C-alpha cells in the first residue's frame, strides 16, 4: 500500500519534525526540506498530495514557491497548507492556499486537517 506523499517545507527543524510526526499520524509519507532552494529541486519530482509550506524560508520565499506550484499544472491535484507566524501575510494569502495555519500549530489539529485533505482514492489504497 502506497501512502500519499506530503512535502514539509519548513526551516525550523523542530517544527519540521513535529509536522512530520503529525502527518505520519495522518497516514502520509513525508519528505522534509529546510530551505527554498531544496524545495525548488523537489518540484521537478512527482507531485505530492499535500504540501506544508512555511512562508519564511531561506533562499526562496514560501510565497514564490506557492506561486510556482500553483502555476504548474502537474500540481493541480496538490493541496497546499501554508504555515506562518505572520498574521498579515497569512491574511493576504488566504485565497491562494487551501489552508493557512497560523503558528503555533497544534499537531493534533494538523493531523485532523491533513486527514480531511487526503485524496479519497489514495485513502482507499
Amino acid at each position, binding site marked *: 500500500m502506497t501512502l500519499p506523499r506530503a512535502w514539509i517545507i519548513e526551516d525550523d527543524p523542530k517544527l519540521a519534525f*513535529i509536522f512530520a510526526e503529525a502527518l505520519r499520524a495522518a497516514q502520509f509519507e513525508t519528505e522534509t526540506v529546510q530551505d527554498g532552494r531544496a524545495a525548488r529541486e523537489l518540484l521537478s519530482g512527482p507531485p505530492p498530495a499535500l504540501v506544508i509550506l512555511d512562508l519564511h524560508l531561506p533562499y526562496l520565499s514560501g510565497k514564490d514557491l506557492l506561486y510556482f506550484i500553483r502555476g504548474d499544472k502537474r500540481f493541480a491535484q496538490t493541496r497546499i497548507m501554508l504555515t506562518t*507566524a*505572520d498574521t498579515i501575510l497569512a*491574511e493576504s494569502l488566504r485565497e491562494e492556499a487551501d489552508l493557512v495555519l497560523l503558528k*503555533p500549530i497544534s499537531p*493534533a489539529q494538523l493531523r485532523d486537517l491533513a486527514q480531511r485533505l487526503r485524496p479519497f482514492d489514495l485513502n482507499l489504497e
Partner: protein
Amino acid sequence: MQWQFTPYIIPLVVAAISSMALTLYAWQRRHTTPAATSFALLMLAVTEWSIGYALELGSTDLATMLFWARIEYLGIVTVPIAWLVFAVQFSNQDRWLTRRNLVLLAIIPVITLFLAWTNEAHSLVWTYLGIDSSGPFSALVTHHGMWFWVHSAFSYICLLGGTILLVRIALNFPDLYRWQAGLMLLAVLAPWISNGLYLSGLRLIPNFDSTPFAFTLTGLAAGWNLFRFRFLDVVPVARRAIVEGMPDGVIVLDGQNRIVDFNPAAQQIIGQPAAAIMGQLAGHVFALRADLVERYRDVLEASSEIMLGEGEARRYFDLRISPLYDRHHHLSGRLIILRDVTKRKQAEAALRQSEQHFRQVVASISDHIYMTEVTATGQHLNLYLSPHIEMLSGYPLAKFIDDWSFWPMVMIHPDDRAMAAEQAARLASGQNSQLEYRLVRANGEIIWVRDSGRAEPDPVRQRILIYGVVSDITERKRTEVELALAHDQALEASRLKTELLARVSHELRTPLGAILGFAELLEFGIYGSLSKAQKTAVDEIIDSTHNLTNLVNDLLDQAKLDANKLDLNLTSFTPDDLLNSVLHKMEVLANNKGLSLTTHITADLPAVLTGDLNRLQQILVNLISNAIKFTQSGTIQVCLHRPDAAHWTVQVIDTGIGIPQEAQAHLFEPFMQVDGSITREQAGTGLGLSIVKQLTHLMEGEVSLKSEDGHGSTFTVLLPLQPLQEEIL
C-alpha cells in the same frame, strides 16, 4: 407888529420843512438806527433855527426881530452840541456820552440862551441892536458882545470835534462806499463853508445868514446816507456789534499807553468798572502784572501767550499787539487783542494727558505697536512706532523712524523677506494681514514675531493707514517645535512599539509551535505512554501555551489598534456563520465547567448580515470566554437582536458573580481586572474587553454592560446595520 415878505424867506421855509421832515423821519427810526436820536435832535434844532430866522426876516420892527432872534437861539445853541453828539454816536464812541459829559456840554449853551434873553441887563451877547433897511429886506443888525465869542468858540469846538470824527469815518470808508464818503464829506463841510462865509463878511446876500440852510443841506446829505443808503447804520452797527460782541478783549492804547477804548470782553478780562479803566494808564490798570506791562511797554507788534489770574481763575490768552497809525502814518497808539484760549489750553492739556496715558499703555504691553501710512503713490511712512521696538530689535528707535525700509530690508530675516513683502503688499491694498516671520536682532540673535496688521483705507486723503502689533513669539515657536518634536518622538515610539510587538509576537510563535507541538506529541504517546501525572503536566503545558498564544494574538491586535492599522474586512454572512464556529469552540470550555451555552436569535434579525466576520467572532469569543471565566454555575446565553430598524445587537448574558458598579467604568481599559484575587484562576490576557471595545468602535458600534454584584452580567454590543455586501463579494 408888521410883517414883510422877502423871497429870502423861501429857502428858509424849504429848509425848515426839509429839516422837519428829516426830524420826523429820523425820530421814527430812532430804535433801528443808532445815532438817529441825535440826528433828529440836530434836525429839530435846525428846523427851529430856520423857522425862527424866517420869522425874524419877516418881521419889520426891532422888538419882533429881537424876539425871533432870541427864539432862534434855542436852535443855534443846540445845533453844535447835537452835531457833536451825533458824530460821537455815529463813530461809536457812545461811552463818552455819559450823563456828566452831557451836562457839562449843556452848560455854555444854557448860559448863552439865558444871556440872550437877558441881554438888556448886561449886553453880553449883543452890544448893539438895530435895523438895516439898506438891503433887499429889513434886517436885524447886531454888534456882538463878549459872551457871543465864548458861545461861538464853544460852538466851533463842538462843530470841529464832530467834524473831525465824521471826516475820519468818511476817509476810512471802504472803497465800496466812496460815493457815500463824498456825500458825507459834503454834508460835514457845508456848515463850515456857509458859516465861514457869514463870519468873514463875504456874504452873497447882505445880512443873510445861510448857516441854517447849510445845516439843512448837511441834514439832507447825512439823512440820505443815514437812511437811504443805510450804510451808516449797517457799517457802524456791524462794526460795533463785532467789536462789542467779540469774545476777544479789544483794548486801544494811545501813544502814552493810556486806555482810550475797550470792549466789554476786555472789561470783563480786566475785571474793573469801565470808569476805572477808561483813560487810565495801562500800567495802572494792569498793576498786578507789572512784568507783562514792562515786557510789552514799547513793543509795537507781538503775538504770544500769556496767563492771567491765579488758581481756579487762571485763564490763558493769546496776546496780539499791533500798532495803530493815524492818517498821516504817524504812530498813534496800539491795539491789543486778548483771545481767551483757556479752553484750548485745557483741551491741549487733556490731549497731552490722554497721550500720556496712551504712551503708558503702550509702554506697559510687551508688544511693539506701529502705525504706517501708505500714500497714493505707494510710499510707506511711519506715523507712529512704539518705543518697544528698541527692545525687540536692539536698534535705537531713530533707525526706524526716518527709514521705513529698515524693518523690511534689515530687521526681517533674509529668508522671510519675500513673504513679508507679500504681507506688506496685502496691507497696502487695504486687506488685513497676519504673518509670522523671523527678525535678526542687532546682536545677530534670531527671534520669531507675529505681525498683525489692520488696514484702514482713507479715501478722502487717498491713503491707507495700517495699524499693527508685532509680538515676540519666539518662546511659543520654541515650544511648538519642542511639541512637534515630542509628537514625532511619541509617534515614532508608538510605531516602534507596534513594530516590536509585531516582531516579538512573530518570533514567539515559532518557539510556541515547538512547545505546543512537542507537548502534543507527548500526549499522542509518541514517546511512550504517559502516567496520569505526566498527562496532567502535559495538559498544563498545552493549556499555558494556548494562553500565551492568546496573549500574543491580543497584544498584536492591541498594537494594530493603537497604530490604527487594523482594517475591517467586510463580508456578508448569516447569523449561523457567526455563531456556529464560535459556539463549537466555546461549548467545550463551557461544558468543562458544567455550564450550559445557549443561543437565541430573534425573528426580526435579517437573514444576512454585513461586517467583519472574523472580528465579530473575536468579539464573541472574548465575551463568551469572559463569561465562562466568571460564571461558576448556570447558563451563558448568546442573543442576537434587532432593537431598532438601524441596529442589531450581540448580547452575552451570564449568571456569574457580576461586576461591582465601581469597577464597570474601567472594565474596558487594557489590563484591568475586576479583582486581583480571581485573576489566577480565571487567567486572561487582560486585553480581551479592551479589544472588544475598540473593535466595536471601529465598527461604529457601542459596547455596554449591565451588571449587579452577584447577579450576573449582560454585555451588549450594539452595531449599525450595514447594507448588504453583495457588491463587495
